[in-house]
């Protein structure tokens, strides 16, 4: 039996912790949480939430607990195919995660329990569906006590959603800096004045920020009031209505021009789709990361074969449209994420270990890098050999589309700058990749000057 490795993100709550041993993911539940755990199962809440797809299922495990002095039992939760973070979600994903959290809280209240936290990091996605992964997030409801998770909910969900909807969708990236959610005083300052006229935002952001300032040093309450059960329900319903009232639409030319593969004729696209599909059938990868996926047209070639596929793009509008299509298709094998490959998600949090970098969450079995290379090599000035080294850390199979200099997309990138990219051609690419990859096939795409490579890591 191997050593248990405690998950670095699992230290805040003393109710238990997550560990891996011999590749198995387990959760130790501590004795201090026994009563709450038995209530969660005994009340029927666990089964109800699992049946609704809102909570991960688990089974009792025979693994010995890593900390037996504290242990009540060990669970083996169902695994989520890929751990993603709120700063990698589009507006629609964050909104669904927020609504799922509130739905869980409503169902918990109905069974005499409550969420003791409301962290967006406790939510993961199975395809388009958000699911709570922390089985130890529940506690017995103390009716007279306010909701412990209220502040966290507003910081992790409501503030970023309001900022994305009312100021700029790119403000979701504040979650990358503020790992416990966007401070409400900051959100209040950034939101437009009109947000004060929306009752939900006025209450849960502006008044909330004011209350935090005013009562920052309070040790005894200014109010001697007590919560009631309908008070708890009222709060959750009001938060729900506030979240539902927030919308974001990808509009404007900046988004729209992206969605068309303007450099391709219909026959060219058909040919590129057919070539990619036949490569996927040939290599049969277990997982695919489609980098620079746009709205996910090529990602779906993989996910429709039942291959778990990440569909990564740095354009919030493209990811939003991709996500909306996923909601309609309900495929559990496709996950669109908002990541800028020139600056991918780093390792964050305590000791830089709480949230994994993109690279730590790999490698993928296959990467699709279609119409991506010019963005990395020319727009980001990355040398081809560095790109090759990066890919070799991330994948075994690489499906790479080379976009030559004469292509109008590359010409556009070069139109106002010096062409310092002497080796940016097929020969230069093959030379730069030769050290880390073996070229398996090289196929020109019909009616275009582009070439599709299949490479395997050496």
């Amino acid at each position, binding site marked *: 039996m191997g050593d248990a490795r405690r998950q670095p993100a699992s230290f*805040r*709550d*003393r*109710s238990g912790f997550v560990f891996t041993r011999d590749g198995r993911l387990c959760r130790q539940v501590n004795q201090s949480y026994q*009563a709450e755990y038995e209530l969660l199962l005994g009340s029927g809440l666990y089964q109800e939430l699992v049946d609704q797809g809102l909570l991960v299922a688990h089974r009792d495990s025979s693994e010995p607990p890593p900390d037996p002095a504290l242990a009540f039992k060990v669970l083996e939760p169902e695994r989520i195919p890929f751990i993603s973070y709120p700063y990698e979600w589009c507006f629609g994903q964050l909104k669904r995660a927020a609504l799922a959290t509130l739905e869980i809280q409503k169902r918990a209240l109905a069974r005499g329990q409550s969420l*003791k*936290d409301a962290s967006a990091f406790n939510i993961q996605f199975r395809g388009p569906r958000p699911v709570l992964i922390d089985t130890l997030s529940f*506690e*017995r409801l*103390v*009716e*007279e*006590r*306010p*909701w*412990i*998770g*209220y*502040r*966290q909910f*507003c910081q992790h969900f409501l503030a970023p959603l309001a900022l994305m909807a009312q100021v700029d969708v790119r403000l979701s990236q504040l979650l990358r800096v503020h790992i416990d959610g966007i401070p409400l005083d900051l959100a209040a300052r950034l939101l437009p004045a009109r947000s004060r006229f929306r009752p939900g935002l006025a*209450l849960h952001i502006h*008044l*909330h920020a004011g*209350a*935090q*300032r*005013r*009562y*920052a*040093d*309070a*040790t*005894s*309450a*200014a*109010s001697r*009031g*007590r*919560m*009631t*059960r*309908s*008070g*708890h*329900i*009222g*709060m959750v*319903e*009001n938060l729900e209505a506030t979240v539902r009232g927030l919308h974001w639409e990808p509009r404007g030319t900046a988004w729209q021009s992206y969605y068309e593969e303007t450099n391709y004729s219909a026959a060219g696209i058909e040919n590129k789709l057919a070539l990619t599909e036949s490569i996927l059938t040939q290599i049969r990868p277990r997982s695919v990361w489609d980098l620079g996926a746009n709205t996910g047209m090529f990602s779906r070639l993989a996910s429709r074969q039942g291959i778990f596929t990440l569909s990564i793009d740095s354009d919030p509008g493209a990811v939003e449209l991709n996500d909306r299509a996923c909601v309609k298709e309900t495929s559990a094998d496709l996950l669109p994420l908002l990541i800028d490959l020139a600056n991918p998600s780093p390792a964050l949090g305590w000791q830089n270990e709480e949230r994994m970098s993109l690279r730590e969450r790999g490698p993928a079995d296959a990467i699709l890098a279609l119409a991506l290379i010019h963005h990395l090599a020319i727009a980001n000035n990355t040398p081809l050999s560095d790109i090759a080294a990066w890919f070799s850390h991330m994948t075994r199979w690489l499906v790479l589309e080379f976009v030559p200099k004469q292509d109008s997309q590359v010409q556009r990138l070069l139109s106002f700058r010096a062409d310092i990219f002497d080796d940016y051609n097929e020969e230069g690419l093959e030379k730069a990749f030769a050290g880390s990859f073996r070229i398996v096939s090289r196929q020109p795409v019909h009616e275009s000057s582009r070439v599709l490579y299949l490479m395997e890591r050496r």
Partner: protein
Amino acid sequence: MIANWLMVPDIGGKAQVLLAYLDPGSGSFILQLLVAGILGGLVALRMSWGKIKARFSRRPPEPDDTPTPPEAKPGG
């Protein structure tokens, strides 16, 4: 007192301190106490209104055969 809200009888009837592992924030706690009365009142009102509506809108063809809807306590 904030600390007093956390002193509640446990299942066995013994007083137990229920301190959260997460800092809920004093301002966030107090705001909830201030507004939950209003929001909870609206919920209670809606629930009672729903019951009144249900009582008058359901007109059973034979009143004796229809079971009375259970009394739900507004506001719990």
